[in-house]
């Protein structure tokens, strides 16, 4: 089975091609460059390199967020349209879950996160149990302070994985001390190969219904809902 995995949900651009669970090729950049311009050429180049034609693809896996709203939409628009055109299944995988794969051999909590500004993070808690990645705390848009408070109470050791680790590194270490494990640079970069692997083991989504995992309402929508409540 030929699987194309696409991640444009955050700063990292990742494209991977897998034959079943084996990565055949991968493109990754960690640059503040335009995903919209670079995604399709990256896919095209990689497919050419591997001598794979679009119609030979069997499945597309896409990182569905959380992350940059625009970035996530670029990935999902591309993935679902391509899947629709090729009439193959598409699978959306949480961008946090992809990061959690980097903690594959850690027995306790894994806390992947993306910075969501103003002290907020998109995060959830994961744990590997019986070779399966299990969600321990539902993904949400939370204050990092609240996340850390909960972790102190849980008394577990936690590995933190995030391309935005530098923003919170000091605070995490301050609050959790040696319960916090923060690995070196490359562990904080989500890998499209992991994304493909995650998607291999999941049921496919309905192509039409696949939408981003924003974890946050659009600001106008949130304000509008607040207003509706106020009017009642």
């Amino acid at each position, binding site marked *: 089975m030929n699987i194309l995995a696409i991640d444009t949900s955050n700063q990292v651009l990742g494209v991977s091609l897998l034959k079943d669970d084996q990565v055949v090729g991968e493109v990754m950049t960690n640059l503040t460059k335009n995903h919209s311009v670079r995604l399709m*050429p990256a896919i*095209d180049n990689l497919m050419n390199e591997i001598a794979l034609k679009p119609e030979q693809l069997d499945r597309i896996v896409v990182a569905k967020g959380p992350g940059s*709203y625009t970035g996530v*939409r670029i990935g999902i*628009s591309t993935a679902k349209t*391509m899947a*629709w055109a090729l009439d193959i299944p598409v699978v959306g995988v949480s961008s946090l879950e992809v990061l959690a794969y980097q903690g594959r051999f850690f027995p306790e909590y894994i806390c992947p996160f993306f910075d969501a500004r103003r002290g907020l993070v998109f995060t959830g808690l994961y744990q590997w149990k019986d070779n399966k990645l299990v969600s321990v705390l539902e993904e949400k848009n939370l204050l990092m302070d609240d996340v850390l408070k909960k972790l102190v109470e849980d008394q577990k050791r936690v590995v933190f994985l995030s391309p935005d680790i530098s923003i919170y590194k000091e605070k995490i270490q301050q609050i959790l001390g040696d319960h916090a494990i923060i690995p070196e640079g490359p562990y904080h970069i989500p890998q499209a190969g992991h994304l493909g692997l995650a998607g291999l083991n999941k049921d496919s989504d309905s192509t039409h219904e696949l939408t981003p995992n924003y974890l946050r309402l659009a600001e*106008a929508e949130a304000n509008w809902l607040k207003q509706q409540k106020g009017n009642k």
Partner: protein
Amino acid sequence: MKKNTLILGIETSCDETAVAIVKNGTEIITNVVASQIESHKRFGGVVPEIASRHHVEQITLILEEAFQDAKVTWDEIDAITVTEGPGLVGALLVGVNAAKALAFAKQKPLVGVHHIAGHIYANRLEKEFQFPLLALIVSGGHTELVLMKEHGSYELIGETRDDAAGEAYDKVARMLNLPYPGGPHIDRLATNGEKTINFPRAWLEEGSYDFSFSGLKSAVINKIHNAKQRGETLKDEDIAASFQASVVEVLTAKTVKAAKQYNVNQVIVAGGVAANKGLRKELEAVFLDTGIPLLIPDITLCTDNAAMIAAAGTIAYEQGRRSGLDLNANASLPLK
């Protein structure tokens, strides 16, 4: 016999998700438009983030609907065309990336299209062009006069320096507590009102074909405020009629002047505001006198749709223009 050219068009620059298939640039095979207007009404205008979210939800559904309706196979499609700009960048990105995914998956040529070129070419779906022609594009986002001497060549001779005409309509409508979009409501009120208030006409400097509507908008707002302070009551119908008279007079006068100066053989009006009855009536009356044929396409082709993008894209495709897989959305794409 020459084979027919079948072009797929995609348009997501604002608040409609649209897909169309057009034959030879002149015949609509299918034209599917999903409007988000009901969603944006809550906010009194188009919210870019919400628009982008709706486009992602809709895009493959609309593609599927278009293909089901057209009964066309992929083998018959010659190229994929898409609005690359101008418009809301987040909204454009959904269409552009979907188009690139299709071009790649189906190994078809890709052509990026300018939204205004699309509005002009909407007309060719009803009537063949006679060059040179002048196009007046009036919508919530645009007020432009474009001269075309041949297919695919666009010369911008006038544009708004501030608000688009449709934008001014929406703002005045809000002042009068009319629902969004305000244009049709003002148009309706205006037919029952008298032009009793003399609002300014922004002619700008001698010979300019540019427009400006922000002064007019401010004048309307001031008039309403002052009347309120003095305890006077102005009839909404009269405000609407007087405001509309100012917009229509400037649009019509500049269009006629340009049409005569450039000796055009056709005048085309496009964009959502082309549905305005006051504007249509005035333009029709004035151009009847000049003898220059005036074309205003059906309202479904005046507002944003993808058939117009496919129609403009057909010419670009036939002229050999191609976009790469690195095609990007450009919110302020210039018309060339």
